């Protein structure tokens, strides 16, 4: 059956949904407001508001005597933050986050490159599955599983033993800072688990960025005389940089804020997340906890500013 319109303008739809469609068509900005309003309110008021409240807290101080918060503007909490013990925590966390980020990017790039350039059909599906699968199981389960893997009686020690490489493991564990009694109580163990847990957050943005690099740019570079290394340095990496930066924001900020992994795997020395947890919980020092949370925000802000200055987002 065909419907032949009698007039140029089709009859108006009488249903409320039809009228709404007409209204939105005439006023597209209203539709935009309706769609974006709730999430923006959520982000703007609830999220930014509480962040601001948190920031405000860091400018108050705690009364040593009564343990009550003194609501007067002061920089005393920041002075406390910059004490040697706390600086130690910050330095430890930032170094760990930086190393985890660098190493993750190093491992993730070839995987992402393979997925973006070569994987097709079922191999691509398999890639997504393999990358996402770890995210399906509980974070805690994975971390405890790693504790068993890295333990002195664990499978890793066993493998080293079977390969007659136990001396290598022992030599590594004998090193200062990165070593310890076993991998599960060393910074090396914390590092391995961080890299494992955040890996998907690094692979996926890099893969998305590489996917957008046209293959003929790689060919053009090669055609103009660029060796594979030069093509990587001058074409592929700069164009994938927004993805690498996005991935590193994830791994960096997630490591800065995490308080579970260093508690389960690693030495007993605190990371920022643990410090915040301890200060706002047992110690009841909300201002210092707030001051600690300001650290990652400042670092991330500085990091993004530097990335922008280095031209990381020029290709966007």
């Amino acid at each position: 059956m065909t419907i032949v319109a009698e007039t140029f303008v089709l009859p108006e739809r009488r249903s409320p949904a039809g009228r709404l469609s007409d209204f939105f068509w005439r006023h597209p900005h209203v539709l935009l407001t309706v769609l974006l309003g709730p999430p923006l309110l959520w982000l703007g008021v609830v999220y930014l508001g509480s962040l601001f409240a948190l920031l405000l807290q860091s400018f108050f101080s705690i009364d040593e005597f009564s343990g009550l918060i003194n609501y007067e503007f002061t920089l005393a909490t920041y002075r406390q933050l910059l004490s040697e013990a706390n600086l130690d925590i910050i330095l430890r966390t930032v170094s760990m986050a930086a190393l985890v980020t660098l190493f993750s990017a190093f491992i993730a790039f070839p995987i992402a490159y393979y997925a973006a350039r070569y994987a097709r059909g079922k191999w691509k599906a398999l890639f997504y599955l393999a990358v996402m699968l770890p995210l399906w199981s509980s974070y805690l389960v994975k971390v405890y599983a790693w504790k068993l893997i890295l333990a002195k009686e664990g499978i890793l020690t066993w493998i080293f033993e079977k390969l007659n490489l136990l001396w290598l493991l022992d030599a590594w564990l004998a090193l200062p800072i990165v070593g310890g009694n076993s991998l599960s109580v060393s910074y090396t163990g914390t590092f391995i688990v961080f890299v494992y847990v955040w890996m998907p957050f690094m692979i996926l943005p890099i893969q998305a960025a590489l996917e957008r690099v046209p293959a003929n740019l790689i060919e053009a570079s090669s055609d103009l005389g660029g060796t594979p290394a030069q093509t990587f340095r001058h074409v592929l990496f700069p164009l994938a940089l927004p993805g690498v930066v996005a991935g590193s924001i994830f791994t960096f900020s997630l490591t800065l804020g995490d308080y579970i992994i260093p508690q389960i795997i690693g030495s007993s020395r605190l990371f920022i997340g643990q410090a915040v947890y301890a200060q706002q919980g047992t110690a009841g020092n909300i201002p210092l906890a707030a001051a600690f949370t300001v650290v990652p925000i400042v670092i991330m802000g500085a990091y993004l500013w530097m990335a922008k200055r280095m031209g990381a987002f020029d290709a966007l």
Partner: protein
Amino acid sequence: MTTAVLFDNISRHFGAVRAVDRVNLSIAEGEFFAMLGPSGSGKTTCLRLMAGFEQPTAGHIEIFGETAEGVPPYRRSVNTVFQDYALFPHLSILDNVAYGLMVKGIGREERRKAAEDALAMVKLPGYGTRRPGQLSGGQRQRVALARALVNKPKVLLLDEPLGALDLKLREQMQEELKSLQKSLGITFVFVTHDQGEALSMADRVAVFNEGRIQQLGRPEDVYNQPKTRFVADFVGSSNVLTAKLCQRLGLQASFASLRPEAVAIAPAADGALSLSGTVAGRSFLGATNRIVVDVDGNRIAVASPAAHSVPAIGSPVTISFAARDLHPMEDA
């Protein structure tokens, strides 16, 4: 004369697909060589074999007497102008053009000067600080050309470089490319699916179909004496006369080609051949009228000068042509 590019029985198969199938060709130094064919005919794969992006499944390639198999693209003195230009979006125009010199380790000042000269050559002086995204299609095309030519390649490969441009710009670029090639003396290998472009620019044309060269020769010869039915059809849409019609005209051939512009709507003069039929269609093409005449079920197109009167559809007409314009062809 030195041979720039030599294909000796080259095949390139992708699984069961024979993209290029036993192709032989030899391109002379300084020649403007066009590879013409429909999409999927193997012409672009041949170009990629010269650039080094593909390796032959079988056969032997020589570029200026040196074996090309196994030589990576970055070690070939051959540069490509890509179909969609492939300019680096994160680099300025100047850095794009200087890229080839940069990766070869030439100093900053020297390569800046060379790149500016190359930009001036393609009539884009002073555009160096812009980004590819700020240029029009025609300008990007010129930048791609400058980026390739600044390396002084021994062979310049052009992969449908004018495909994305509008007609006016395309015609202008055709002339510029031609004169550039003449003044530089570089061997140009040009891939196109536009027969007009191939015929007007090239010294020699290779017509590709299904991975093979159907005909290779000077544009005039390919146009006037198509060797196969495919060439007759693809290059300038010749009339293809069947064996039966050929026989009626006293020619022993399975097929014959007849150019529309070689046919006139007029009774046969001395020594000319003629056929009678009815007018089946007509269309105005500007300089000519294209009139389709039905001769016992065979449709023969006639290019009639626009000044001549056009017979009405359905009216009986006699068409005539010289015997030498009828070219016998192979059956393919």
